[in-house]
């Protein structure tokens, strides 16, 4: 255990890693699996780039438990109790909600076990599969669990970094991934994700706190409104728990208004998180929360189309923010 083995990095997969968070993460995880024989991946019959590589090169360290997520969490806990560093992997609703009580008891009550739950399919990522496959409550549910680290990457550089960060952190972790590609926000060689959030852009009129895919949207909104004399600050809140309260409060205090945007139910997500933080700390600023309202999305079609239904598309958000600022 703990012995280093020779790296067997896949060039083919490396080419793909900038294109999507899922591939970037799984490629980085594969590197870790090559380095440390204590690392093991369990899925409930959900595929990703590195799975076949692990199966081929490290038999026994990739386990498909079948479509049985409750057992997946218990088995992960048991393996972690024997010294393994375990990743469990499935589509967001199934790796969070289907086995939520197992995560609560087996991972969080027994808080020392190094198990990372990886959910693929943030928000409407599975845009054609309907609400059963939408990831719209996961951040809320996971951030309420004591001891849980909650990570929500905004690009592939960060997703890859989170594979390494989750490997090094003790205790239970949740990582929320997008399948698809996004233009990169961070430079691979310079990125430091230890603070829990990044102040990507300064602005005095409104500070938009965003997470996941919506960080890019917030940056586009800021760009769009810069030409209309609205100054927008953007915060990438990529670690919801533990929250860097001090840094977030410091940034929030620099703008006249606060907005949040997330591809998640507003209830319980970062909109709730920021509201709680402001209320508790006497930050009496106007707050507007963009996200999915209290409703299941029964529409299908391109993800952008689903965003437009809830006014999360670039034009709708930009207009709403502009109208708000200009009063």
């Amino acid at each position, binding site marked *: 255990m703990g012995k280093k083995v020779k790296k067997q990095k896949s060039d083919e997969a490396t080419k793909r890693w900038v294109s999507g968070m899922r591939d970037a993460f799984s490629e980085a995880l594969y590197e870790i699996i090559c380095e440390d024989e204590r690392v093991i991946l369990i899925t409930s019959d959900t595929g990703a780039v590195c799975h076949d590589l692990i199966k081929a090169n490290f038999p026994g360290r990739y386990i498909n438990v*079948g479509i049985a997520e*409750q057992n997946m969490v*218990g*088995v992960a*806990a048991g*393996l972690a109790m*024997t010294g393994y560093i375990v990743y469990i992997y499935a589509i967001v609703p199934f790796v969070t909600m289907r086995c939520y009580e197992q995560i609560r*008891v087996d991972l969080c009550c027994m808080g020392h076990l190094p198990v990372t739950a990886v959910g693929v399919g943030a928000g409407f990522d599975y845009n054609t599969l309907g609400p059963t496959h939408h990831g719209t409550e996961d951040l809320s549910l996971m951030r309420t669990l004591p001891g849980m680290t909650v990570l929500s990457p905004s690009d592939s550089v960060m997703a890859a970094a989170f594979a390494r960060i989750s490997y090094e952190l003790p205790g239970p972790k949740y990582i929320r991934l997008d399948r698809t590609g996004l233009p990169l926000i961070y430079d691979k060689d310079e990125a430091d994700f230890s603070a829990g959030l990044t102040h990507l852009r300064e602005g005095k009129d409104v500070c938009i706190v965003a997470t996941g895919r919506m960080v890019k949207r917030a940056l586009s909104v800021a760009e769009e409104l810069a030409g209309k004399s609205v100054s927008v600050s953007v915060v990438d809140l990529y670690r919801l728990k533990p929250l860097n309260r001090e840094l977030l409060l410091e940034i929030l205090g620099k703008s006249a208004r606060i907005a949040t945007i997330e591809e998640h139910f507003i209830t319980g997500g970062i909109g709730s998180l920021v509201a709680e933080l402001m209320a508790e700390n006497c930050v009496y600023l106007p707050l507007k929360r963009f996200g999915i309202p209290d409703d299941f999305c029964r529409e299908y079609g391109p993800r952008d189309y689903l965003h437009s239904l809830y006014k999360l598309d670039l034009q709708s958000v930009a207009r709403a923010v502009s109208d708000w600022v200009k009063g």
Partner: protein
Amino acid sequence: MSDRVLDLERKANWLRNEVLEMTVAAGAGHIAPSFSCAEILVAIHYGGVLRLDPENPKWEERDRFILSKGQSAVALYAILADLGFFPVEELLTFTQKGSRLGGHTEDTIPGVEAFTGSLGHGLPIAAGLALGARLREKRFLTVALLGDGECHEGSIWEAAMFAGQHRLNNLLAIVDRNGQSATDFTGDYLTLEPMEDKWRAFGWEVRTVDGHSFPELIEAMKDVHDPSYEKPLCIVADTIKGKGVSFMEREPIWHYRIPVDEELDIARRELKWEKK
């Protein structure tokens, strides 16, 4: 009857008395579910099944015992204290203000492996432990004690299927088959029959015993450390909930009741309680 069996029977009677006094002092705890598995717990802890070291609770080669039916924590705590995992005096703090001994097992208590109490969790964890032992080439045995009603949980059968698939022959599940759950008789509202055939169908070797008979329990577990079979083993232990106190036996109301007044006198008399 051999001296060894007599010793184990004395220990089981001691355990029932200990459980009764702890729960009466606390005004809380599950008596009948603990009485149901008293012989099972004594057999595995004192009958040469589990290899443990109270001086070194985290000894890497120790056998792992998961009390999946975590409501019998009071009985397990009494045994762990008796074995020397923590001071016996602590038992009378059970569920009291400031005590670390609560109504369900916590993994922070010396000798306890997993946090249980919510049903259906113990067998999946035990399956992970057994698989981890095999992957790491460790020879320890993992034992999970399941309740009867607990077998209604789907996660038990997810884990049963998994253990059968992986042929976890270092895993032993014991079902405390008392025919009852919290409020009723399982056979009357959601039958688990045929219990043995279910486990066999999931790829397990199955042995059925009288769960209050030490000779039968010991015989059924004699080869668990060096199994000749290639499957996980399930012991279906037929038991009586509340065993040992006549008015508690098979009476659903005693799942979570504490005897008072005359009830307590009768219980103590039937358990041959001797005031310390």
